[in-house]
């Protein structure tokens, strides 16, 4: 994640999304024609399928398994999907999205399973075990630290009652209904407290980023 992505928080509620993106950005797909073309071995259809799903699959796999061998994994998923389509395994073409999701999830589970078994074999051969270092890199640590500092500033600056709401929800993971019931809040008040905190988080994040950019520019 780049610093810009992490700090430039574009906090938007659904109603805040620009009209162009709010309802029309993700096109409706009729999957049957595409599936039929892939089934028939149409190369352009396969490219279209890849173009539609590759970023989403990459995003999911990277979140779950990390960036290692990402291209190979995305390729494996596509191979599985196209083979399934061509062999007629995908019986309901309109369920293509669900099928893609299932294949990706299976890929993740299989990878975890393979890691577990590899480790078992390794453990039976060796006295010790080598763990890959998953520690966050310094950039990521710094970004995380900054985000936490911003969140702390927000929590320290708001009313005690609002803070309690946020702590209950984000730390103790109490359901919204329970928080509202126990603290005598309406659903709207509850949402407002959260959305204000989010908006403030976004503003402070942006302000910090612009200060940093300005500071860096002075030394260029």
């Amino acid at each position: 994640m780049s610093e810009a992505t992490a700090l430039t928080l574009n906090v938007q509620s659904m109603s805040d999304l620009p009209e162009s993106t709010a309802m029309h950005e993700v096109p409706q797909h009729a999957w049957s024609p595409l599936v039929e073309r892939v089934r028939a071995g149409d190369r352009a259809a396969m490219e279209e399928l890849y173009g539609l799903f590759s970023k989403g699959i990459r995003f999911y796999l990277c979140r779950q398994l990390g960036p290692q061998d990402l291209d190979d994994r995305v390729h494996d998923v596509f191979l599985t999907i196209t083979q399934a389509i061509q062999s007629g395994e995908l019986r309901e073409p309109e369920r293509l999205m669900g099928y893609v999701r299932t294949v990706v999830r299976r890929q993740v589970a299989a990878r975890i399973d393979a890691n577990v078994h590899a480790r078992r074999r390794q453990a039976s051969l060796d006295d010790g075990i080598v763990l890959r270092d998953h520690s966050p890199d310094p950039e990521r640590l710094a970004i995380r630290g900054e985000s936490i500092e911003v969140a702390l500033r927000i929590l320290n600056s708001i009313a005690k009652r609002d803070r309690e709401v946020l702590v209950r929800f984000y730390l103790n993971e109490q359901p919204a209904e329970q928080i509202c019931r126990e603290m005598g809040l309406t659903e709207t008040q509850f949402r407002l407290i959260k959305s204000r905190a989010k908006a403030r988080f976004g503003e402070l994040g942006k302000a910090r980023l612009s200060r940093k950019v300005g500071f860096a520019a002075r030394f260029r």
Partner: protein
Amino acid sequence: MADHVTEEDLEQYCLGGLTEVRCARLEEHLLLCETCRDRLTETENFVGAMRQASRQISEGPLKGRAAGIVASRTWRQSWPGQLAPMLIAALLLVCAAVWFGRHSSVPAPLPFAVELTAVRGAAPGPAPAGRPLSLELDLTGLSDGQPFAGEVVDASGARVAEFAVSASVRLQALSPGDYFVRIYKSSGELLREYALTVKR
């Protein structure tokens, strides 16, 4: 499919609180929608920071960097007015320590918080041996429609602990070594595995 994911659903997804059906719908949408993928990253950053900051605040003013700064500022601003309550608090602490020294043979160490995240490349540093652990599990993407089982295994795969899965799990102290924390579906399917190193 054209509708974007709501903020509530993104938050619940990060907190592992979506039902299986809603989780599936959201993940299918994310496969195609770059806007919502970006929003998920932002939400995840916000939820993670809020959670960490809330923990620091809940653990009291002596813990946590920023909370510490706040405490020291408050001290500089009005230390004479706060001296009496602080002295009383210190006295109470001493009394409590003496009482515990007499009534318990081994003082119970505070649990050490370990945050286990599903995002690879963000695993925690080593946890200390000999202290109970408070595992903060990242349940992002797991739906709440079914119970999950958790276990801790050592490097050879031998089970050393079992627990019911929730966002925060208390574990007994572990001896030094490499461990793996796993989350299973009730059907036995392995869903998550996190590495955990315990050092002396």
